[in-house]
């Protein structure tokens, strides 16, 4: 079934916009904004505000009606659905089904100096009352911190026979994260060790489909709890081991 944005009536298609055009404000400026939205296909465009915020820039707030709708059933993608267990269940699951500790190495790689993401997932105190992976008795966790070159991360993971490598990327300006993340994958492949690890990436601008596209096994976006990462890792490591056996 096709749906359209809901303003105050079903299928009225109303959307709100705010944007800036690099033009000086003039009496013509509102029309420039209006015609811009019309050329994008929106109908019943109304410019609520057009204001010169600088001699070179005009800021717009506008409304328009969407020219088309969307069928949610036709949207297919790569979504990671983790069956979330509780802290004790994860530990029990690893102990019973894996029979050894699950080894994890994590880092913010290359230029990224931000440890906030990897720390939220790994540090013992965790995040929002949710323990980090270091707290799990059945996990062996090394948090390498920030600005870890891919080479160093991979070497460490190999030395520790890690089951999983967790990579955090916070900075995404000019797509630097794509560059960094691709480097790690290429390195793993060049060394012929890609299959040894579950490669997971997390960050505020990461999602599962994006991670898959880059060659990772899973991607976690904002609001991820350590528990969902722990649940995923436990289930995935066990699944792989049992499918091999």
């Amino acid at each position, binding site marked *: 079934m096709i749906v359209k944005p809901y303003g105050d009536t079903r299928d009225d298609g109303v959307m709100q916009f705010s944007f800036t055009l690099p033009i000086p404000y003039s009496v013509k400026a509102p029309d420039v904004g209006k015609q811009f939205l019309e050329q994008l296909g929106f109908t019943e465009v109304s410019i609520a505000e057009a204001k010169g*915020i600088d001699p070179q820039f005009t800021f717009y707030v506008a409304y328009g009606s969407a020219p088309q709708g969307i069928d949610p059933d036709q949207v297919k993608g790569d979504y990671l659905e983790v069956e979330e267990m509780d802290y004790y269940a994860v530990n029990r699951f690893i102990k019973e089904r894996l029979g050894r500790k699950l080894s994890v190495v994590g880092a913010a790689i290359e230029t990224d*100096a931000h440890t906030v993401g990897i720390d939220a997932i790994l540090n013992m105190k965790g995040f929002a009352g949710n323990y980090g992976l270091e707290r799990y008795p059945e996990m062996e966790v090394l948090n390498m911190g920030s600005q870890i070159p891919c080479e160093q991360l991979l070497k460490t993971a190999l030395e520790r026979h890690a089951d999983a490598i967790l990579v955090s990327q916070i900075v995404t*300006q000019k797509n*630097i994260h794509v560059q960094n993340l691709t480097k790690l994958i290429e390195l793993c492949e060049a060394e012929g060790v890609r299959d040894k690890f579950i490669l997971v990436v997390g960050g505020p601008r990461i999602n599962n489909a994006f991670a898959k596209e880059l060659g990772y096994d899973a991607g976690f976006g904002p609001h991820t709890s350590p528990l969902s990462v722990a649940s995923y890792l436990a289930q995935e490591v066990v699944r792989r081991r049992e499918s091999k056996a």
Partner: protein
Amino acid sequence: MEHKISLNEAMVARAREAAKSIADDVWQHIEAHTTDSVERASLRLLGITGVNDIDVPLVNVVVEQARPLLPSGVMRPFVDLMMRSGTDAQQTAEALARGDLTLAPVPPERYAAVEARAAELAAEGVARIDAVRARRAELIAQTSEPARPYVYVIVATGNIKEDVVQAQAAVRAGADVIAVIRTTAQSLLDYVPYGITTEGFGGTYATQENFRLMRAGLDEVGAEVGRYIRLCNYASGLCMPEIAAMGALERLDMMLNDSMYGIIFRNINMKRTFVDQYLSRLLNARAGIIINTGEDNYLTTADAFTQAHTVVSSDFINEEFALRANLEPWQIGLGHAFEMNPATPDQVVYQIADALLIRELFPDYPLKYMPPTKYMTGDIFQGHVIDAMFNFTGIFTGQDIMLLGMLTEALHTPLLQDRYLSIRNAKYVFEANRHLLGEVNFRPGGLIETRANEVLEKAVAQLSTCSTSGSSKPSPTASSPTSNASRRVAAAAKGSSSRRLTTSTPSTTPYARGAPADHRRRRSASPSKSSSRPRDNRPRPPRVRGGRHDRQAVW
């Protein structure tokens, strides 16, 4: 400022005493050591600039060549070489880089002449800084001093030319202070990049050329709007003193310049940081720059409700180190922020209590209030409202520098329009509430006064613990003959992540200064030393409000 809440004065005195004792512990270490960056900053003040044929800054090249001589500083052998070769500082550095000249220890018979020449050069360096400071005063007189609180916004495009466009737009919308965010991880580079930046990640490199370009852009728009627009950057990380030197020469007006940030948040060698922060602050003091400290960072990883006292503790320590580096009260922009979970009932009441506490504790300082970040989400509309509450808390509690929150904080570096909307938000809230605080008395023993005293009490407990058993016990200094090598090992064991990114200087460890006994005169050839202000290293009593440095008088 009239007292708004009643604080336990005995606790305030104990906090300052403990901060003093903590600073005393590291003072001996600071006094006895120099670092690579301190030496390079001294060379920069002689006017040395530029890079060699593989882009290594000349000051790095010189310090690298002087490595065996470093314990007594690079300045004497360098000045000796200038005198012997009859060239100026820049030419001497260039000749050293080409390999045409080499540095050597100063023989005793030339020592007095070298000292005298070095003192002259130092005085010239200081005169350059003074001239820049005088120029600022002149421009403020020609335009005007913006009203408090200053509206402080950030630009961070990675391209300095684009930064200037955005900064000018922000100023026209009402910004008073522009901070240019540095490229990700510049804090861990052991050199200052050279030249213009047109592509940076997460920000724009702090380089002298970028400073100059932004300065020109702000002067231009400042003249247009009739306000003096302040430029802010980061004298932090491994090159803290060098960036302070560059800022002093290029007329920056504010510097993020925390005494401990590098240690706590960038894993930089603490021995080095304590030495570096001292020279950088001496330079900022001389240059008339307002420093900003980074206490807001503490609560990005810890809970603001339970850990607010860590901010207070750190402010006391930063104050103590700032006073020891000649900074005057009007230059000490202590930072703070207490972003509580928006789900906490009465969070704004507690945020007001905490902000008011800092205001009462440091009445003469231009306090910097930081915006919400941790609980900002993709819901930019709700974010805009939370920002407004922070703006309200800021004006209501009499803060001086307001770093504005952006509605898109959780999403991306601010769009041009985000900055415009945030400035409009702040201007509206500031003007709408400008005289509210003067009309209000807080209930004695009420939520606000009680909370403020509780936080203070916890800060005192924390400071007392640190001062008796903390991480700052005296380290081996020149008085105990530990070799530089062993010190380096100790620092490496401490895990200085900085070493990974160094280009030309492998060690981040401070050098014990003045190893040759007959040359043991503290940094006497360094330009920074010849500050005309007496360098008084004894612990000082807290400044009294209403004195010579009263805000009214200074501003």
